[in-house]
């Protein structure tokens, strides 16, 4: 206990002992100056990392921009291709074209629709073979003079074809009769199971094209 007190006393007393000799000496220069090089290196490093980063960022953005442009033009090209294909489909499925193809295949219009009831096997309507004279009229009705003339020709051609075909028709009627009851179309299940006859010669101008 006392030793602690002594020590404290000594500590208080010590400055009191020295005031007689104030010692002024030159403070030595601070030797431990912060070394300059690491700092410079650090700053340079930070700067160059920033620069390189910026450069990389810029480059990648730039590359991205080019990529966007390239992909955009690719997409444009594909869009154009898609449009062209869609255009082809819509051109091919136009009634004019389908009718022309049907006539080329020798199909004629069915002017007496008849149906086959699949549940009873009964024929509804008067089943008659198609007449070659009912060849579909392909003249353009737009009203121009050229269209007018074309249409006239078709009527005449159809009439001429009618005479020729009547002879052929006579021969083919035999064959047609055997195929008369081939079902062609029926309505949704549960409803009226009716179906038209499918004939070798006689068919209305167009079977439904799947769209």
């Amino acid at each position, binding site marked *: 206990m006392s030793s602690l007190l002594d020590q404290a006393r000594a500590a208080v007393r010590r400055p009191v002992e020295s005031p007689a000799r104030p010692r002024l000496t030159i403070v030595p220069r601070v030797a431990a100056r912060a070394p300059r090089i690491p700092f410079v290196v650090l700053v340079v490093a930070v700067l160059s990392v920033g620069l390189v980063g910026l450069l990389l960022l810029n480059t990648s*953005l*730039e590359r*991205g*921009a080019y990529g966007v442009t390239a992909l955009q033009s690719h997409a444009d090209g594909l*869009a*154009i291709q898609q*449009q*062209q294909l869609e*255009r082809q489909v*819509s*051109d091919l*499925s*136009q*009634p*004019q074209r*389908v*009718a022309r193809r049907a006539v080329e295949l020798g199909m004629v*219009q*069915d*002017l*007496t*629709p*008849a*149906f086959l*009831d699949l549940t009873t096997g009964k024929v*509804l*309507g*008067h089943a*008659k073979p198609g007449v070659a004279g009912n060849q*579909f*009229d*392909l*003249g*353009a*009705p*737009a*009203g*121009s003079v050229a269209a*007018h003339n074309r*249409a*006239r020709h078709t*009527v005449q051609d159809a009439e001429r074809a009618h005479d020729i075909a009547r002879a052929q028709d006579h021969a083919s009627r035999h064959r047609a009769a055997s195929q008369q009851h081939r079902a062609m*179309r*029926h*309505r949704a299940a549960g409803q*009226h199971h*009716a179906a*038209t006859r499918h004939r070798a010669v006689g068919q*209305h*101008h*167009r079977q439904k094209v799947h*769209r």
Partner: protein
Amino acid sequence: MTRTRRVRRGRRTRTRSSGFRLWTSFLVVAFVVSLFAARLVQLQGLDAGSYASMALKEDTNTVVLEAPRASIYDRAGTPLAETVDASMMTADPTYTRTHATQIARLLHHRLHVDYFDTVALLRKPNTRYVRVARHVDPTLAKAVLAELERRKLPGMYIDKDNLRRYPAGDVGSNLVGFVGADGNGLAGFEYALNRQLSGRDGSATFQVAGGQQLPLADNTVVKPRLGTGVRLTIDSDLQYLAQQRMARAVQSSHATSGSAIVMDVQTGQILALADYPSFDPNDIAGANPRNFGSRAVQNPYEPGSVEKVLTFSALIDSGLVGPRTKIVVPPQLVVDGKPIRDYFPHGTLHLTATGVIALSSNLGTVQAVRQISKQRLYDYLRKFGFGQRPNLGLDGESKGILHPASQWSDINEATIAYGQGVSVTAVQMAAALGAIANHGVYVAPSLISGTVDSTGTVTPASAPEEHRVIKASTARKVARMMEAVTGPNGTGAEAAIPGYNVAGKTGTANRVDPLCSCYRGYTVSFGGFAPADDPRFVVYVVIQNPQGAAGGGATTGPVFHDLMAAALAKYGVAPTGKRSPELPIEW
């Protein structure tokens, strides 16, 4: 000491001169700075707005985001009018001037443009932008540009362009219409629905540097408002068939024009509406502007005897006449001092009401209609849609002419009873027949089945207006009377379809010639529905001013037959298999 003094003196003079210099410099600097300040105030304060916008203009780029015009579809969703991407070939004449002939020759070969026009364009002075070819296929345009580059012919460029296409050509062109060079509709639904179809262009504004978009800079995008497409009730196949058939009928009877309508009885939807002559929307330059509209919708005419079925509907519904009512038909009648005759000379006939319809006797109709009041007949005709616009959505729809009953004299009532002195359009007549077919309920005819948004979602149009005109029992009786028309003794035997019960009525009317405002020539027509005992379709055919021996039965009956047969076959409508008992014609 001396040194000190000298120094002092020197210092004094230096102080004086330096004060002067300082002062002068200050003034100079102050002056210059005030100049700068003034300029600053001018730039930042006074002209700031204009400079800022100039700077903004310099490095911002605005691109129009086009809202392509929406399509018009048929009832199956096949486009009747569509907009496709195309390219426009433009040129800078300052570059192309020197080798215009070489470029023009190439363009003439590849794009089929006129050689001399192109040379003139490529040499056009005082401009740096000319449009050389429009609506060019994009792949073709690219190929042409590549070839020009290969031949070292600079100055040609590709711009975006739109092309309105009508893939079906003249199929439905009377309804679809067409657009002009500026992309706005000029006829048909293209005109009537122009606002709905066209939408509104948007824009994208972004900052650019060196031609590249600045990735993180301000971007303003105003999204384009896409147009809303429309789906018509038209069945392209039936429409084509109807047009072809009408063309043949009009041509072979040397008539002026004609219309045919196929209508769904239950929904009032028009499956085909053919007008002849018509036009090809892909070749407007070669078309006659008189054919741009739809006659079936715009041109009223006196319908003639087809109207008799409406008169008899009114009579039967009022309980005044039945299908077997006996009518004495005199050889001639005089009403208000004017003689009325039948189209066939006869003595006194004893016809039933059915016989009057089957043989289309004017005199029999006039005898019968005397029992009903003018106002009552007028009310029935109004309910059948006469004198009222059908509101199909097309421009220039006619509501026909039906004068109020108060203005009718006796002769008016007599002639209106058989379809003269009253005017309707083909669509009105078809819709009126539709009311009889639809068990007495009138369904407003329609051409638009719905709208199609940019994602392809179809929103059905609102249900058509409906109202009862006659009792269902009346409709059934009238239908049976109309069956007699297509019977072996009727005026419309040509319209009969073997196996089906077909209700029909012929019409041969005196035609009002607009050139002389007098009766000259005829209007022949045929209207009816099938199967008569469970109607699905109404077909109405009218031909204006046929030459030679033409009548409703002979001229339009076969057209009715072909269109009805096609509609029944395509939609799988089987005959009902029941044979309607024949009604007596004479007594």
